[in-house]
């Protein structure tokens, strides 16, 4: 009974504490979410981003579409994100994506980016979270 009480009280004490914290460069990691409606490359999207000390690099949908990210930037004043990537549609025509968003819940391990995407073939909302 005492152990149960301690356990319950400890849970109360833990309430409100974030489970995992943010560490390292805020963009580094794998991000999963949606960029919809995207009839060309599907609504689900995976970004794998890295930081070499000077440049943000990465790939959109690695293993399937393999879009190399270019012209990436992070403005820490507001944590504003800008990413670009070249791809091709099923017919082989060039498509350039431009993503603009903002990091939310910066302090959290599973922080998010919300914003917009646009290309020659459309535009829509982007919502991804770090895994």
């Amino acid at each position, binding site marked *: 009974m*005492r152990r149960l009480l301690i356990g319950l*009280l400890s849970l109360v*004490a833990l309430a409100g*504490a*974030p489970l995992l*914290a943010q560490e*390292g460069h805020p963009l*580094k990691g794998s991000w999963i979410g949606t960029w919809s409606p995207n009839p060309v490359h599907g609504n689900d999207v995976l970004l794998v981003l890295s930081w070499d*000390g000077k440049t943000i690099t990465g790939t959109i949908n690695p293993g399937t579409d393999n879009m190399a990210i270019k012209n990436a930037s992070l403005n*820490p004043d507001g944590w504003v994100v800008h990413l670009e990537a070249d791809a091709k549609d099923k017919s082989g025509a060039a498509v350039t994506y431009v993503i603009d968003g903002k990091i939310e819940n910066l302090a959290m391990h599973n922080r998010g980016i919300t914003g917009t995407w646009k290309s020659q073939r459309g535009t829509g909302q982007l919502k991804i979270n770090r895994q």
Partner: protein
Amino acid sequence: MRRAAILLAVASVVGIATERGAAHHAISAKFDDTKPTTLSGIVTLVDWTNPHVHVYVNVKDTKNQLLNWAVELESPIDLQQSGWNRDTLQPGDAITVQGITARNGSRQAWGRSIVVNATGRQVLNVKPSAPPAPLQARPTPLWPDGQPRLGAVPGSDGYWAYPSATVLVENGVNVDVDQYGLLKNVADAAKVAPMQPWALSLYENRQRRFLQDDPTFINCKPPGGPRQFQQPYGIQFVEDRSRQRVFVLIGGGNRNFRVIHTDGRSHVGQVGGDDDNPLYYGRAVGKWDGGAFVVDTRGFNEDFWFTNGGLPHTDKLRLVERFTRVDLDTLRYEVTVEDLGAYTRPWTAGWNLRWAGGETLPAHFCQDNRP
């Protein structure tokens, strides 16, 4: 008492030593200094557990309803060293608590003072335990070959504690910061170290959140990097000369350890061949440079804060540390931080640790992920 007899006051190279009666995280991370409270009620439970003792108290609110409050105190070690134990308070005791309340609005308070109503006696307070500095320097203990000993001589005990600084600030910089690394003025953040813009903004964000995102606080993550030498419960060197390695035992956190290889190996094959598994303490190689033990460490992961106060780092972090046992009671620690992922140039900081002779590392555990 033995330590007090040995260590008498004199100016040594040690500055203001940090007292051990310090929470393992910034109190302000969880509690709001601007929200004082007084709680009068009946003790329902004393939870005498690491990392912090909690006393649970039934308190009547303004509607005469009984509410259970959790009053958080220092660690069992600090309380025991101040003469208290798990039986100091008993369920049923009527007490009055002066403290500050939790930032998240829950029924938690940091207890600054507990008074037993029946006797008026103040209990469970922590008395400062920092020893006075020695009257005169005692010679550095040596191995038979003349190399300084980092640890205790055979037949004795001891460890390093009471760091003269518990924050990592570039040498020559003067900023007002508390023992947990919390800046008095966040506008001073840029002075602390030569951070890249993203790292500076992240550091400021951590500061504005009162360090509540500290992985050591939230997840009991190990204190890698210079932080291991900022711990209130100290560190101990174990020199395994036969196997050419030095262990650094960590007195707080999860009582884990770091290995420094002294067999002449390089980082090639350690970091390059295994860099998909970066470590909290990195991969360290050490060698003696005159009277200084110089340690080069790379291969850190990014899952921890490498200093109190939340200075960011990346997996490009490289540390070059110099340990110099100035005399028996003084260890000079100097570290050069190289991390071009987060900083614009290498930079250096340093402080002293004091010898806690005749003692073993305190058994403090950050357990059960309980804040």
